[in-house]
């Protein structure tokens, strides 16, 4: 199976080579973007075109407290970004290119928490554990997100082994999906009858694009 794959890859290279009848380059890049840190494998098969396969990932966790209705809640918030991407670049000018493709968008914000103080109610106090737990989860409605961007620089260096690229773009991830799970006295929050999930999904619906600002540094490994 491995042999077949190598033979196929070789055949593709031959076809490209014959089709475009010019030098092709293969390299790797490290990148940092609003989607995280990662790397690309860059295959430049034409003076004006290349393809990138890559991944990136970033995770940030924090705690935050907030108060509602005289109850203080503590939330553990984890924000994850990252993607597995397949991009095609077309150089409209020597150092300006348009990038298009798809990414498996792993963007996710998850917040879980619970009340940390009781709720004074008349002559009694409603215990914090009765108030319940919550979990809010935000994820793209389109996990496979199309990408469009413009870049300045080169995905692989043009005349040198090293290349630098700066890119601005967006994933179209669709209006984010919100999932709410609640227990205890805050259970109505996740009860569809009260429409809280729908309400907050509409409140974040403007984030249908995931903006990308990306820097990359590449190294040309093979020219053939």
């Amino acid at each position: 199976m491995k042999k077949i794959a190598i033979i196929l890859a070789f055949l593709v290279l031959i076809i490209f080579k014959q089709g475009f009848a010019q030098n092709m380059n293969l390299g790797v890049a490290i990148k940092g973007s609003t989607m995280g840190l990662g790397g690309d494998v860059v295959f430049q098969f034409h003076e004006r075109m290349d393809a990138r396969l890559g991944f990136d990932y970033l995770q940030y966790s924090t705690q935050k407290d907030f108060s509602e209705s005289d109850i203080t809640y503590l939330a553990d918030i984890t924000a994850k970004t990252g993607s597995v991407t397949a991009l095609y670049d077309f150089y409209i000018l020597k150092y300006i290119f348009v990038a298009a493709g798809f990414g498996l968008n792993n963007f996710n914000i998850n917040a879980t928490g619970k009340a940390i103080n009781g709720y004074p109610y008349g002559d009694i106090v409603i215990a914090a554990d009765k108030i319940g737990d919550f979990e809010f989860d935000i994820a793209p409605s389109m996990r496979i997100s199309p990408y469009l961007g413009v870049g300045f620089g080169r995905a692989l260096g043009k005349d040198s082994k090293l290349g630098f690229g700066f890119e601005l773009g967006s994933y179209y991830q669709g209006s984010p999906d919100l999932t709410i799970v609640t227990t205890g006295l805050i259970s109505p929050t996740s009860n569809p009858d009260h429409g809280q999930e729908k309400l907050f999904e509409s409140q974040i619906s403007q984030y249908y694009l995931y903006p990308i600002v990306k820097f990359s540094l590449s190294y040309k490994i093979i020219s053939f």
Partner: protein
Amino acid sequence: MKRKVFNQIKVFALLVLTLFVTNSCNDLLNNPMKDKETGEDLTLLLLDFNFFETKFTFHFVDSMGEYITDKNISVYLLGDDAANIVDYNGKKNDVYTPSKGRLGLAYDPNVRVTESDPVEFTVFVDVEDQSYEAIPVEVYFSEEGNYDVEVELFKTEELKSAVLSPGTEPFNVNFNNTLIKKNNDPVWKALSGVRYANGKSYYSVFRATLPPVGKLTSTNFTLNESLYKNWGLEGYYFISGDRKTKEFKLTNKEIEVKANTVSFKAYSATELKNVLRCTKGIFVNVHEKFNQTGTGNFKYKLLNGTDVVKTGRISFPSLPFTVNIGAFNYPASATSLKFKLEGDNQYTIETSEVNMTNFCGDTVKFVAKSKTGLVPYKIVISITCPGNVIGITPSMGGKFRVTGSQDPWTYFEFVQGTCTLLLNPGATYSVEGYLGDMTAEFDFPTDESKIDEAAEDLLESKKELEDIEYEFSETGNGKEIKIHAIFKDGDCPF
């Protein structure tokens, strides 16, 4: 070369601008916790103010089962667990006042109710103009739940005192030689079994206004002390409206109170004779024949032959449901009891009487059948108090019937702010709703085109309300109505 690079930067800037022109930066910077349309703060977590695992709805009714709505009734709770009782605002009071013959109380949710630690207290009732008397009612439940407790009050007449005929147990009670006893309804027999925590049983025998000196003789009051000689008496009297507990003793045809009392209410004690107590109660299970669920409240009677052992109501937020009726006393000779369940305006009960042989702790099953022509209306209520910016989903209750009809009221209760009622499309219903200690009476038209007018009427009658928003939608076999009540600052019901 320099110019060439500069041109490329300009092209790049143009491309970036084109790419992002459709993605408004203003939108991206919007705070999702501010309503997009109104700019008002949004509440993330909706809190159900139904904090309570165990709730009691007391129904104060006359001998015909009608609510006593025109009297000032004071309700006192006594017994060890009475201290754990609160109103729906979480307040512990010495005296509670029913509204429209109904009183909703709850058990402190920090105290568990279990078989080994049941909730047990006694309800004493005082009617301001003394036009009604009630026997103390013991409440005993060994698990958490929502319970209905019926307190029956008996009409008295002014200046009449009680004459007890002790030789005719179960007790017949006469007021001015008028026998207060329903035909074939030995209510006093059941009452003789009412038990207070110390193992004695109590029943109300008289009320009198005492002279400044605390001594009441049995003038016009026949008391066979042999019945009571081995039993102490406990009672409660009032000084300037405050309830006091004081020992007083029964002497020969006298009750002596060692205090300066202004008014006096006594309960005499007797031993439970040939009566057994079932603390496990009976579980009542009801399911609907056509899976047509709804909210309601059924009346029941537990009978020994034709003798009433216990009466009451059971509430259900949806069908099927199972609920326990709580502890009851029954004659030791009883080998079986009959459980009778009455439907309401929404449901009929297929076989409404069931004989039970091993009744204590057993389950009795009924099949309810929704009445023809009725359609489920799912009602979802939420409340906002702008001052506190809290979104709450109240657990409220109430009753309804077709406007202008004399149908019995059908009772309902919201759970997590929702309930489903079976209603006749096109009809208008009179509704009395209870939310905390707030009541609201209004007409509810099932016709969507008439609801604006009803909402305006309600807004006019309830000055606490700032606005009411509603939304009708069709469901599979009925309708859903979402109602959002917005209270004025400072008028929040919670």
